[in-house]
């Protein structure tokens, strides 16, 4: 009885202390400070060119001139050397879709094998994949690019021929697939390994083969985990610069938006009217995905980091 009262009082006290107005105030201040840079960019992007370059974006609130010309310019007007941004926007989409679907498919296959097949060397493979997660991409760039460009020839034997795919999306897709696999396999394995053994065994006893078992039981059960990872991989690929830059082979026909924006920052250091609008165009899709699916994104993040 006494302890119950005590606990009740303690709990109430705990609430009061933790939700103290001072803590809340500081948290809000931080949240606002965190948002100001992005907000400034967004506000600038809808101001007329002259305003952006002659006054701070915060003066927008006393002198609110709105213009969508910047978006019009950046999206639909190319330069002498560069196509308009909408082409790069399409490239980002075209790079991202397969670069999400391919690794997830292969990863869910491999995760199934590592979680439910019994074979020698299973642990070794699993630990190797786990370790590969943190190998820096930089380590693989040059040899992998050479593979795409020239194939692989050891001595006189052609192991992998020159496929002639440089300058298309294909090397970017393959590279993203490879780089996404370790984390995807690890996360999905952790999830698939939690399926109750009885369920798998019951299905086996009922005569389900390994393939039926996968398509009828394992795959439907792993949809939530797949969704979490898909968001992860989507943001990763959409926001990536390094892979797009190197594996795109410098071809503007396949370069994603990040490559173009990075180039704009470099060559037109002062053209803020185009840069602010361009940067926002490149951010809008991930921001929508982020706000709409934040819960799943967080779930994926937690599965990946709280465990290992």
């Amino acid at each position, binding site marked *: 009885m006494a302890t119950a009262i005590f606990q009740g009082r303690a709990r109430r006290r705990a609430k009061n202390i933790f939700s103290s107005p001072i803590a809340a105030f500081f948290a809000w201040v931080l949240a606002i400070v965190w948002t100001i840079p992005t907000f400034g960019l967004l506000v600038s992007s809808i101001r007329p060119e002259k305003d952006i370059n002659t006054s701070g974006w915060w003066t927008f609130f006393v002198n609110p001139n709105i213009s969508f010309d910047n978006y019009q310019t950046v999206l639909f007007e190319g330069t002498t050397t560069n196509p308009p941004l909408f082409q790069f926007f399409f490239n980002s989409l075209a790079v991202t879709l397969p670069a999400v679907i391919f690794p997830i498919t292969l990863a869910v296959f491999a995760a199934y094998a590592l979680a439910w097949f019994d074979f020698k060397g299973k642990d070794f493979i699993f630990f190797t994949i786990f370790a590969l997660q943190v190998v820096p991409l930089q380590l693989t760039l040059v040899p992998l690019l050479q593979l795409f460009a020239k194939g692989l020839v050891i001595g006189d034997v052609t192991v992998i021929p020159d496929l002639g795919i440089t300058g298309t999306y294909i090397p970017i897709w393959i590279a993203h697939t490879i780089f996404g696999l370790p984390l995807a396999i690890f996360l999905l394995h952790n999830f698939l390994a939690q399926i109750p053994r009885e369920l798998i065994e019951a299905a086996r006893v009922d005569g389900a083969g390994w393939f039926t078992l996968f398509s009828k039981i394992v795959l439907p059960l792993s949809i939530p985990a797949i969704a979490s990872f898909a968001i992860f991989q989507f943001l990763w690929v959409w926001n990536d610069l390094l892979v797009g830059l190197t594996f795109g082979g410098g071809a503007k026909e396949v370069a994603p938006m990040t490559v173009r*924006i990075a180039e704009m920052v470099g060559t037109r250091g002062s053209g803020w009217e185009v840069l602010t609008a361009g940067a926002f165009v490149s951010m809008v899709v991930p921001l929508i995905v982020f706000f709409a699916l934040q819960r799943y994104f967080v779930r994926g993040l937690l599965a990946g980091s709280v465990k290992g």
Partner: protein
Amino acid sequence: MRAINIFTRATPLEIITENFTLLASALLAFGAVVFLIFLLAERTSVKAQEWLKYLVFLVPALLLLTVGLIYPTIRTIFMSFMDAKSDEYVGFDNYVWAFTIPEIVTVLQNTALWVVVVPTVSTAIGLAIAYMTDRMKRPAAIKSLIFMPMAISFVGAGVIWKFMYNYQANPNREEIGLLSAIWRALELPPVNWLLEAPLNTYLLIIVMIWIQTGFAMVVLAAAIKNVPDEIVEAAMLDGATPIKRFFLVTIPMIRTTLVVVLTTITIGTLKVFDIVRTMTGGNFSTNVIANEMYSQSFRQMNYGQGSALAVILFIAVIPIIIYNIRQLRLERTER
């Protein structure tokens, strides 16, 4: 070269149409192959499935990982001991180069600074916010705002912050960068932020902290939620102040997660390349290994030196790999 020629002839819409065809056929082909394999495999005998299952489920991923990660890693290590064109063996020359040329030594020092500052500061701020919002009634809005930069690309973040740091050389014109405007309002002497070393490196580091804090906050908030109420209450009954409780109860209880957050951010920071490239191009003494590795390999076309830098990155993550594997082993034996 071939690609550029195509561009001068084709309009954006033509290019998109052509690219869309490739996209659609790639997705269709992939789907069709997977579907067909399953259709056929499900009809094979139980005995055949015993080996077919490895071929379908395991081999494709392993093959890609071997060809795409393991083989290139080994090859890069070899290339780091060879000259620019990977023709001749040069011993440790490329490493001697990395550790003696002043420019590259700066690159290594900057990277070290990034790796020390970004993980500690973003974890500290993330932890503070996670703790402050832990028992708040509606923390969702605050958390979303701080988490949001995670959805923004490094390139986008680079643009956002370059705008913040914008500097107006002409004192008669208005500052359009927020930082400079505040500086001017305080009547401090103007600073061309991104050109002043070593200040500029810290300003770039702030961008990474801005992005990573949300990650630290989300993961640590989940860990703090998992600390049993009874323990917190027991500490309270013993008269521990909130500050003491934080250091003596919360932190020890979430230690493993703290390490995971720190190491994850460390790895991300080691590889950071886009922020530096977008904001300063690695100039004005702001360069880091990942960016210099790119310049060496793809601009100077010096594969030897580029590979040596990549291997230095690799060596830096090896302790983390070993630690992670040991943790995973431990977790598995506990189960």
